[in-house]
């Protein structure tokens, strides 16, 4: 079936088997390999993307559910060759280690900050509890999200 949806700001209309997973469509058809597969069952968060501004596990979303929606992946964040504010907050706060969870973590952080522009540490930790990082105790990631929140509030003021 032809599925019309918006991918990183561009209208796309691929011919898809409705039972295919979004993660495979992104990685295998569009070569957007930022979303990673760590578990295939929505537990690890490495494949997180935004669908209509809400974080979703792209391993649990099927092609048949995509029609008319907007999907944003980590590759859609940078503009004009520059990382966006949240990505910069992650690199500047030493929150990127092995980097495998990073794209999903950044997308979850973006989803959180769109809803809650001034989260507490506990709220950040709660929001990121669907994303596993094994390289840290999440300290630097929490710092990055707080920093990003502060910068975003300054930009929107």
């Amino acid at each position, binding site marked *: 079936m032809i599925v019309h949806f918006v991918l990183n700001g561009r209208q796309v209309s691929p011919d898809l088997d409705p039972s295919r997973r979004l993660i495979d469509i992104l990685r295998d058809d569009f070569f957007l*390999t930022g979303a*990673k597969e760590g*578990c295939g069952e929505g537990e690890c968060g490495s494949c997180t993307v935004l669908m209509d501004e809400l974080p979703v596990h792209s391993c649990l979303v099927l092609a048949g559910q995509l029609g008319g929606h907007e999907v944003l*992946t980590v590759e859609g964040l940078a503009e004009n060759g520059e*990382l966006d504010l949240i990505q910069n907050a992650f690199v500047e706060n*030493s929150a990127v280690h092995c980097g495998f969870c990073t794209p999903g973590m950044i997308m979850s952080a973006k989803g959180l900050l769109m809803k809650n522009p001034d989260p507490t540490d506990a709220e950040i930790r709660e929001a990121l509890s669907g994303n*596993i990082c*094994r390289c840290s105790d999440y300290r630097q990631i929490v710092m990055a999200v707080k920093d990003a929140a502060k910068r975003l509030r300054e930009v929107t003021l």
Partner: protein
Amino acid sequence: MDLKYVGKDDSVFNTQDKASGEALYACDLHLPRMLQMKLILSPVPHGRVKGMDVSEALAVPGVVTILDWRNTPQVKYNRGRVRASEDVPDQETLFTDHVRFVGDRIGAVLAETKEAAELAVSLVKLDIEEYPAYITPQQVLAGPHVPIHDTDEIIRPDVIAFGDYDAEPGEELSQLSASSRTTHVAMENHCAVADYHVGSGEMEVWTGTQSVFGARSAIATIFGMDMHKIRVHKTPMGGSFGCKQEMILEPLAAAGAIATGRPVKLWLDRAEVMACTVLRHPVGTFVRGKFDADHKLTGVHLDILLDAGAYQTVSPDYCLSMAKKINWTYDMNSAEVVSASVCTNTPVSGSYRGWGGPELCFVMENFMNLAAKHYGEDPVEFRKKSILPPWSVTKVDNFNLGSLPLAEVMDRGAALFGWEEKKEMLAQQGHRYDENGDPDPEGRYLRGIGMAICTHTSGYYPRRPDWGTIVVKMEEDGSVSVNCNIHDHGCGSVLAFQKIVGEVLSMDPARVAIPEGDTLYNAIDNGCYTSRSVFVLGRSVMETAEVLKGQLLDYAQEIWNCGRDVLYCEDEAVRRTDDPSAALPYTDIAYYAADHGKGALFAAHTYWPESNAGPASADFSEVEVDTYTGHCRLTDFACVHDIGKAINPEVCRSQIGSAVQSGAGMVFCEEVRLDPKTGAILNDSLERYHVIRAAELPDVKVEFLEDGSADGPFGAKSIGEAALVPVMPAVLAALNDALGSDLSAVPVTPEKVLAYLEKEAGR
């Protein structure tokens, strides 16, 4: 020394491509004509494959071929062997008809798509004659049985001993302890891509490995290939924690590439990672220790039983790695460590962060906590009577352990944690609390505190010859490229090396390129194991950069016709103390050297370590137990780590944090559970294998001791492995304090907590 880059937290230039999603891990690689490989795994724990009907599988559109034990080399190898000259038992083959565990490799399907490969695997019909299965070492040791292996099924490594334990006077205490299988949960699943050129006979492999030379050696051995025709690239690695240090996927992908003459990707899903790569060893121990009248430890006797899983691989070495650390933390007159590594019909056990260090520390620190309780003493003060003093020489292998500030890390750790205050409060108010955190003798929650200490290794010296051969070259624009066999596990070793070079040459580390492991260009190396990267390779890189700096100064001296003693390097230029306005930018020197036919700015150098200063560290933890659910939570944690010099401090803090996450997980919840009859994994998904999540971790307090005394670059010692070593016993001690128990088997799952509380209530 005033340092400009080392010890600072800038990692931006090193991590941007990961934040942008552009970093390509092995699983992200696409090559033209690439095939997908899917393994055919044994559904039974022990047996002989009599036949395999692949007719339906081959009929699946897109299936190219099927490999099994009959059409691939049957060369026996050891996945843990890094160099072919290593004397380790060979038991494993690419594929086997004698299957030895649920998940053993019988064959593999190669297909155009992963969907086709998966479907074909499900259509393979196996005819297997089943043998009795032995799921525990005790079942194998019990007597006659159907052999799992003809040789080396049970290996008893050399007994490590000094003094005469039996003759040692003093009171003897003893303790049994046990830890379960765990899986590493590196976020990146295992993946290898191999490409074979039929015309040239050349093989190229991309893999997130800890040793490209190890992968090359395994492929060369199994397929009888010339090493110069095999090029292995280390790709960005989404975490290892030991799970990617053995040569598991690379030879399999290579077999697929040779069989088809096409590029092949072998990617394992999470269940396959758990079943078919490597799990942390289940270890059973019995420790006996003697104490003199002052309650100082005088001798230790330790029995170790390691469940190797279906193949010995690294397990015998693992026993020795535990045993040889017996005299690294505590002073004792005598010790005797007896170990055995036993094959069973279970998934293969093998490398895990710390390689025996955490396992031995778990035994010894539990035991010291038990002994402190037995004598009614404070665990910190009790330990001070038995710790080794600074600069001690261990009685096993006789090498100096370095500054070894065990008393200092304990004292600073106690202060950082508030040990005395917390102890006092628990003594006055009791261990029970209510929902609001207020003391309540009938309260729902229990709280306890505990601690543990350790020291660990910073490389191979002196147990194995070690070195680092490095090339540092300067380009015409003054930027630098380093050729070093580095494999960054994701914990910033490349970043550390960039800063080391930046510091030596006084240049922006962002202008230093350090590509990772590549067998075509790198000098042969021992691989990024045993926490040697910074201590050995980092020092090698530092010295090589110093040689290059010498060349810059030579040419500057020639250009200026001046004395050497007035020259120094700053901000990418050679400058003069006698003329503040004079500056020769590196790029000018590089062009001078080339334009005058002097040759390249190019330094090749080898460093051989002659010391192994292990970091000392002390961990303190506080645990809360919910007596209604049995759920345990870490509520406070402090670590003081004698790192010598933290090159990337924030990244080092994350190493401690990572260790706390997985170490506490191993005490509370992380456990690969096996079916007791078949050895099949019962919880082979992240839904059923629990790790501690962001919301369940406290703010971990970390302090580094930076005396700069070690031979590592700028005085650095190791951290990656060492960080994990004392976590488990420190957390278990707090849990025991909360429950008033002496539990010594982990994990202590909620069911076990509730069972313990019920048993106590019934008394």
